[in-house]
């Protein structure tokens, strides 16, 4: 990962237990009824994203939590707050970008996505949030093949 042999910023992160699989309801099994997208579904999409530095998922590091996901299917909006493990985490933009890309690739086009840092948990949260909210900056960044590769590694399923 980035940094090569350099020491990790947060060498001993707290690790959180994963929540279990979601039980399938009868309504969900009925193909005639449309499924509306809810907080849990968004959380399921992002919980297994790999942290860029540690061999752990964002859920295991508590960077993402279901309670910090807010979906409004009727208004086609999704808001995700993520909590960097330390206030000066230099990976915050990359993590936010990975969350954003995962949602862009997974959700219908109608959804408007808002990915931002949990207030009060990062020294540069305004600057990071502003970059993540700028769709032109996100698009231009993803045209950088090296950055795209790093993001794709975060999004790949671990064996």
């Amino acid at each position: 990962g980035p940094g090569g042999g350099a020491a990790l910023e947060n060498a001993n992160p707290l690790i959180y237990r994963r929540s279990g699989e979601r039980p399938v309801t009868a309504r969900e099994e009925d193909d005639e009824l449309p499924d509306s997208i809810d907080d849990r579904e968004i959380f399921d999409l992002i919980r297994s994203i790999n942290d860029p530095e540690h061999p752990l998922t964002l859920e295991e590091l508590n960077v993402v939590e279901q309670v910090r996901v807010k979906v409004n299917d009727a208004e086609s909006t999704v808001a995700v707050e993520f909590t960097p493990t330390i206030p000066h985490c230099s990976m915050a933009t990359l993590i936010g970008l990975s969350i954003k890309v995962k949602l862009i690739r997974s959700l219908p086009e109608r959804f408007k996505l808002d990915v931002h840092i949990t207030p009060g948990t990062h020294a540069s949260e305004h600057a990071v949030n502003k970059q993540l909210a700028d769709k032109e900056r996100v698009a231009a960044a993803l045209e950088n093949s090296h950055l795209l590769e790093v993001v794709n590694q975060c999004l790949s399923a671990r064996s």
Partner: protein
Amino acid sequence: GAGPEGQCGRGSSQSGRGLVQGRGLPPPPPMAGTILLSPGPGWSCRAVLGEGHQRTVRRVAWSPCGSYLASASFDATTCIWKKQEDGFECVTTLEGHENEVKSVAWAPSGTLLATCSRDKSVWVWEVDEEEEYECVSVLNSHTQDVKHVVWHPNQELLASASYDDTVKLYHEEEDDWVCCATLEGHESTVWSVAFDRSGERLASCSDDKTVRVWRRYKPGNEEGVACSGTDPTWKCVCNLSGYHTRTIYDVAWCHLTGALATACGDDAIRVFEESASSDPRQPTFGLAAHNSPRRAVTLHCSASVLRTSVEAEPSRKKRPRVSFSKHMSLMARAVFPVSFLE
């Protein structure tokens, strides 16, 4: 799913002759960086300019005379294309910006061009009768990414909009281009600006979900607004807030009717008109409503431009919808740029 790709930059010809779309689709090649001339109802695609750019084409602009097309790209260059009998030829490539060029604009005189970039700078270029382009100024006034540049309708005055939340104005003073005004007030990135027909007012739109109208006060003005030296002061005289629910990416000011149109990330295009009783020092604008034939003309003008630009976008999944809501805000998919055909 939805993607940041497929954004559409467009420019309209001053004489209404040609509609151009710059398309930024991601690889696979050879579609990346392609410029298409004018698909749409009653229009036929005349040319595909696929060889000029290696990355997203962000904006295109016709020269005032209509013979040249400038294209600004994320590949950090601006190409100048000249119309030939059988197509377009790239006559020069303007280099110098360090990274993505976001906008390009021709001055009404046709001899000046401006570009702006994520490298925070605005460049002014001069072109002579031999079609030679020369950079005459690099302006480093903004502290962040510059999103858009636009020229005053009848003076050599340039405006720029930036991620640093300001609008800046520039003119030539004793052979040097300088920043002569900074318009502060927006609380987030300013995405675009537009002058009204007279050039005495400017509208700006922002990620803060507002449109602000600014008015120029010259030294010695009767309202007693203070000016520094010989430079006019620009004051914010109207703040349109509460109408837009997401980032406003573009604003256009119709030089025929005085109407303002906005392109918003909430998938709507809105048209605003100045109230009949509006005071120039504190103008009031309201959303255009059903009942006047004047509005119908404005909307028809907007609708034909917008329908063309929306339908011209290559359809990734569904065809974009254009319909009229009861408040006459036109609904279109992820509207990015908007402009009026004159």
